[in-house]
């Protein structure tokens, strides 16, 4: 479904990704783990068109999206929940969700999806007229995921959804991810909480200073002694 072929990405003169390749099959949960500054967020930003790779290509369902704008990429069915939630702070919860469906024209479908999101996150329904900026961290995270779902994505990119959340919410968020996946959305997940991520993922990639160093079945990766030492805390 998603195919990243040997991309190099730069921030000005600094190279952040070195010939990174990665693949996600339809229906999978794939996780990407790596230390701080390894380039995980950079990879997601490149996929969703916020940054351009200098070399290499990215295909989504056989369409070359390497040079496409974010707008076109969203249209094709990729949705990105960025690092740090990035909700629109001075808009209400409802307006945030509506913006998630910005490119869609099917009023009826939007209405249905809105209902679905509210069913999944009852908390958001309670707060639908509150300004997003005043929500607590966990609520904002739910909103960010809900907003991404509003575009009916085929592929959902999640960047550290559990960061800064209370343990109880971390469990909750992972449950939700699993659920969304089981309803047919493919997921590419970045996590510091490698333990949790590996436990729900089908496959995993390990990235170190901009290079993919390991990939394979999530269970195998979790059992790898090197990974254990470096990312799972021994």
């Amino acid at each position, binding site marked *: 479904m998603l195919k990243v072929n040997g991309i190099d990405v730069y921030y000005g003169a600094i190279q952040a990704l070195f010939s990174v390749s990665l693949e996600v099959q339809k229906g999978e949960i794939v996780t990407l783990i790596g230390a701080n500054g390894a380039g995980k967020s950079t990879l997601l930003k490149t996929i969703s068109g916020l940054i351009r790779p200098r070399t290499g290509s990215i295909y989504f369902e056989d369409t070359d999206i390497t040079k496409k704008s*974010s*707008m076109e990429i*969203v249209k094709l069915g990729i949705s990105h929940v960025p690092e740090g939630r990035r909700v629109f*702070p001075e*808009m209400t919860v409802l307006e945030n969700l509506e913006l998630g469906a910005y490119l869609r024209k099917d009023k009826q479908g939007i209405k249905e999806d809105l209902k679905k999101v509210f069913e999944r996150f009852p908390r958001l329904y309670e707060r639908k007229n509150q300004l997003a900026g005043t929500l607590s961290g966990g609520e904002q995270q739910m909103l960010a995921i809900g*907003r991404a779902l509003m575009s009916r994505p085929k592929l959902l990119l999640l960047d550290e959804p559990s960061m800064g959340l209370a343990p109880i919410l971390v469990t909750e968020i992972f449950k939700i991810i699993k659920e969304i996946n089981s309803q047919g959305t493919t997921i590419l997940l970045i996590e510091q909480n490698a333990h949790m991520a590996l436990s729900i993922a089908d496959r995993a990639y390990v990235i170190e200073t901009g290079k993919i160093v390991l990939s394979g079945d999530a269970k195998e990766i979790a059992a790898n002694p090197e990974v254990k030492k470096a990312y799972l805390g021994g």
Partner: protein
Amino acid sequence: MTTFIQQLINGITLGSVYALIALGYTMVYGIIKLINFAHGDVFMVGAYIAFLCVTYLKLGLLPALIISMIFCALLGMLIEKFAYKPLRNSPRISALITAIGVSLFLENLMQLLMGADSRVFPRLVNEKNYHLFHGKVVVNSKQIYLLIITVLLMLLLNFIVKNTKIGKAMRAVSQDMDAARLMGINVDTTISYTFAIGSALAAAGGVLVGLYYNTINPLMGVLPGLKAFIAAVFGGIGIIPGAMLGGFSLGVIETLVSGYGSSMYKDAVAFALLILILILKPSGLLGKNIKEKV
């Protein structure tokens, strides 16, 4: 008492002029946080385009107004594309300098093309004076038009920004550009539209003011532009009703100060009052004083 009412009418008229320009100012600011110093000069260009349409092409007021608004909308988009867009990721103040550059450019280009001397704007609407309170208070029909148009434009603009899809896109862009991109919003187009609307408004303002004072010149945008900027900040910059409120307040304050105090010190006293109010309300009249969440 009648004098006071007359002064109030004078103040509201002057305020309408400020508000009209301030609306476009605040709108552009609201989206990209740029003090568009060239706004006052787009206002001037608008007046000149209408002037040319009326005197040389012999068009009526409405077609002249529409042509001028379209022309300025395009001009605004062009200015954004060449002078501001390349600086979108630079410090805000860099774009302020190009804005000053654009402002000087428009003023002096117009001086070159049309001469520095002022032009008389043709009389296109029938004027009527209404005398109230036994003739002690005079209201001109143009004053009424000016006020009504300003309020209508404010409401329209507020509606666009608050309730339409493009308005929502504008607000999204202003709050988080990258996140807006991730929603599938075309940020460049949205900013372009913003400039188009803001500049068309400025053009409308230019035509109305040209009509009201029936005189235009290449530097006519400087002072109102500055005053409108002050009005926009005063009302809470980026807030559309704030721009109008700020414009009216400034107009009325200036008028009352010169009407009841000393006209010599009008600007000084008006500024002093503004500063005093700002000290009490540091984010403008309608600005929410949001304490940064730490």
